[in-house]
């Protein structure tokens, strides 16, 4: 019964690369934790457990043909949406935003899971409605509807980082469709017309938030300070870095949110330019491999799922690293396999498992 080709096509090298990245991330977390006392110093163990659990999830998903997964994609996404709306009503509030659901003693962040089901749902739609003629507005009504209904509950939490990622993934996937030129021009015109109108609707504090979002210098005591300290951390790493567990910026707590948003600063400080290069190469290969899996997939749905996941990784890597290097405003976007967080780890593991899954079945 069992198809030997599944084993032959299982991309062990890709999985090893991911495990290597996870290991480096875990090491980095250990360094961060070592400067804290009791409850905080435990993230590192918890992250290890999450990674192991993520691997378990990975081996389960790999055994289910992705075509069947895509078949029920709408239901999966409906479930995600249900959780997203549940968060708005029953969620736990931390640091002024409501993102977590308490389930059986765990804090679940549904917006993480939603990214995957969002990609699956879009892939299902695009693969079933693909045609030779270019897409027009009318054809794209449903995907836009999915985008809006996913975007708003996340935006309202508020979790601008994840909401932005959702939009980026959406347009990244649209890029691969054959859309009529007229529709593209119309769309850009519409966006341009609407922008000033939105500005009027916004309240003062929201306007201010957007301005700070665009220019952290306006908020020099919080976001601006964080960026400066992060840049000092990265820059002071120099060529060889300060060494494992020897980063002064992180040990003296100049870095904010070291274990989530600013993990890369700690890495860059301790491992220097060499360490960053290794990191960038691993990340690049993960994305490159995801795209090649998309390229080689024998089904359109497989191609779109792989593309979506490739861009999920790409945007996460890019925005997080840009942020720590002072090239992008401070938003809460995690660094895959480096940032602490159970929901985030599981989400990226599911992403990897889908890629392996599609790759295994390319000869069917």
């Amino acid at each position, binding site marked *: 019964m069992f198809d030997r080709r599944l084993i032959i096509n299982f991309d062990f090298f890709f999985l090893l690369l991911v495990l290597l990245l996870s290991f480096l991330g875990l090491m980095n977390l250990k360094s961060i934790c070592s400067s804290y*006392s009791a409850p905080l110093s435990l993230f590192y163990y918890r992250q290890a457990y999450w990674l192991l659990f993520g691997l378990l999830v990975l081996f389960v998903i790999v055994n289910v043909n992705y*075509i069947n997964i895509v078949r029920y994609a709408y239901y999966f996404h409906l479930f995600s949406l249900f959780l997203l709306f549940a968060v708005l009503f029953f969620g736990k509030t931390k640091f*002024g935003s409501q993102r977590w659901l308490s389930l059986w003693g765990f804090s679940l962040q549904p917006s993480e899971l939603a990214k995957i089901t969002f990609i699956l749902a879009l892939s299902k739609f695009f*693969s*079933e409605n*693909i045609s*030779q003629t270019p897409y027009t507005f009318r054809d794209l009504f449903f995907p836009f509807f999915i985008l809006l209904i996913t975007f708003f509950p996340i935006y309202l939490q508020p979790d601008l980082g994840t909401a932005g990622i959702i939009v980026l993934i959406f347009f990244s996937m649209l*890029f*691969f469709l*054959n859309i009529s030129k007229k529709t593209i021009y119309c769309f850009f015109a519409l966006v341009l017309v609407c922008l000033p109108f939105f500005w009027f609707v916004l309240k003062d504090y929201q306007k201010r938030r957007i301005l700070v979002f665009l220019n952290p*210098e306006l908020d*020099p*005591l919080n976001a*601006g*300070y964080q960026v*400066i*300290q992060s*840049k*000092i*951390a*990265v*820059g*002071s*790493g*120099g*060529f060889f870095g300060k060494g494992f567990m020897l980063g*002064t*910026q992180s040990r*003296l*707590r*100049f870095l904010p949110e070291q274990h989530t948003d600013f993990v890369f600063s700690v890495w*860059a*400080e301790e491992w*220097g*330019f060499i360490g*960053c*290069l290794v990191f*960038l190469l691993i*990340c*690049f290969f993960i*994305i*490159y491999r995801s*795209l090649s899996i*998309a*390229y080689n997939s*024998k*089904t*359109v*749905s497989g*191609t779109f799922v792989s*593309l979506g996941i490739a861009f999920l990784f*790409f945007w996460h890597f*890019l925005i997080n*690293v*840009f942020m720590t*290097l002072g*090239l992008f405003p401070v938003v809460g976007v995690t660094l895959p396999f480096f940032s602490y967080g159970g929901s985030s780890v599981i989400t990226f593991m599911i992403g990897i498992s889908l890629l392996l899954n599609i790759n295994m079945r390319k000869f*069917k």
Partner: protein
Amino acid sequence: MPLNFNENIIEKTLNKKIRLSVILIVFAFFFLFLRLWYLQILKGSKYIELSTNNRIRVTKTPAPRGIIYSKNRDILVKSTPSFDLNLILQDVSDLEKTLTEVSGLLKFDINDLKKKVEKRKGHPPFEPITLRKELTWNEMSLVLSKKTDLQGLTIDVVPKRLYCLGCFAPHVFGFLGEVNQKEIQEQNGLDYSPGDLVGKYGLEKWGEKYLRGQKGGLQTEVDVLGNKKKILAEIEPVPGKNIFVSIDPETQKTAENLLKDKTGAVVALNPQNGDVLVLASSPAFDSNLFARGIKYNEWEKLIENPFHPLLNKAIQCQQPPGSVFKIVTAIAALEEKAVDKKQKFFCPGFFKLGNRRFNCWKRGGHGWMNLKQALVQSCDCFFYNLALHLDVDKIAYYAKLFGFGEATGIDLEGEKRGLVPTKKWKKKKYGTPWQKGETFNMSIGQGFLLTTPIQIATFFSGIATGVTIPKPRIVLRIEGNNYKKIFPPAVLKKISISGETLSFIQEALVLVVNSEKGTGRKARLNSVTVAGKTGTAQVISKKVDFEDKDVPLRFKDHAWFVSFAPAEQPAIVVAVFIENGGSGGSVAAPVAREIIKKYLSKN
């Protein structure tokens, strides 16, 4: 769904775009590579220098808290600068030496200083540790003269709350306290961080969101000694908004002096608009004790005082109103036509219901009385006779008409509602039916009935004006930069009883003070006609006649007196409550007289 890709145009365009996206991604990563090269290789030495002794600091600048003014713009509560001695660990090379020098220079206990530093272990080294709050001028000049030798020490200006009149209306203004974890999490749109002082009581708490400004901050580069070298960015703090209150400082002071050595409360209102002129509770405390965080032994003293200085007795003390309530019973009887104004009852000094004996306060009896005489001389027997013909729920209905049993909604937290018993209430609470004898008690303001001094004052405002009961207001308006909020007078209740009944009651109340046999004689003033009503609430029912001096203090009666003046054109209502003071006519009435005299002499 699977497509044969090799011959498909779709596949071709898709694959073309995937190849294109690989190129774009290579570009993005190359850009990251360049940026890292720039930061770590080209600018590396600069950042290494910046990080070896991180010299960029963010400090918050506290915002001055709003001022509390009286109606006439006298400053009652304000903020003044105080100076704290702080230590920044990161700037200290030899901690032992620095601490020894500080303790030698300022005569501080070195172990105390060490303990303070020890306590902050685990915090980032750039966070200041406060070694001493509120330096004196002498201490400050000593530190400043040696500043260059003292590494890592800074003197920071911190605003301190000053209650200008000292121990003055603490129950109105309240006090500040260190913000707790719950308040930090709730935030309420205000920027709290640990150690901040926030309003915990009185107006300071009620007006927290107005009084508190917005913190500013500085991003600075400092030199090796921790001195500010260059300001990189600055945000100015926004001062808090100012509150104007109705309290009349002189009259308030008079009331507080009269209450000294007594336990109790005084509330004075302007019956026309509800302005709270006096709100005093005794024993009091000095809000200044809390100005920069209260010391433990001071706090203990307040907590352990058996007379509860932290309790605002004017709004939180619930007691039976005693004979003051006879006004309500009389109104109920007149409105329900249960009694005629001319009808007389005989008072032998007691009233027998079955085999129960209800005493009048005057053991010898009042003889024949009509309603007006019964009010003036506060004859209990007469009201027992009325109670015979009145249903308890009817009395409760009229009591509620005047605001008994519900909070007045004054701008202070923790107000109690009091209690107006009904048949339904008793059934629910005790499971037993209402007894006729309990109506007797209620008719003279005893038994289950509970009121607060502020309720008595608002009730009397209604009696005085005869039109409405105003909602008591302390805060008149709030002003700030480009901000103004006015709190107009508000109506709590409309009075809906006949004018005839009202003027009858008002006439009787004038006689309480101004006739020979009136119980409120001691409130009489020559210059102005005072109207009022005494009340003496029993703490325990006395089976035998004690001589007053034999009764232990805690069993002595509570004294009430409530009055308005001038009777023709009421300008002030004063309610006086003295806990375990004795009889209302002898203890509380003189207090009310002095307050009325003071207030009317200047207005």
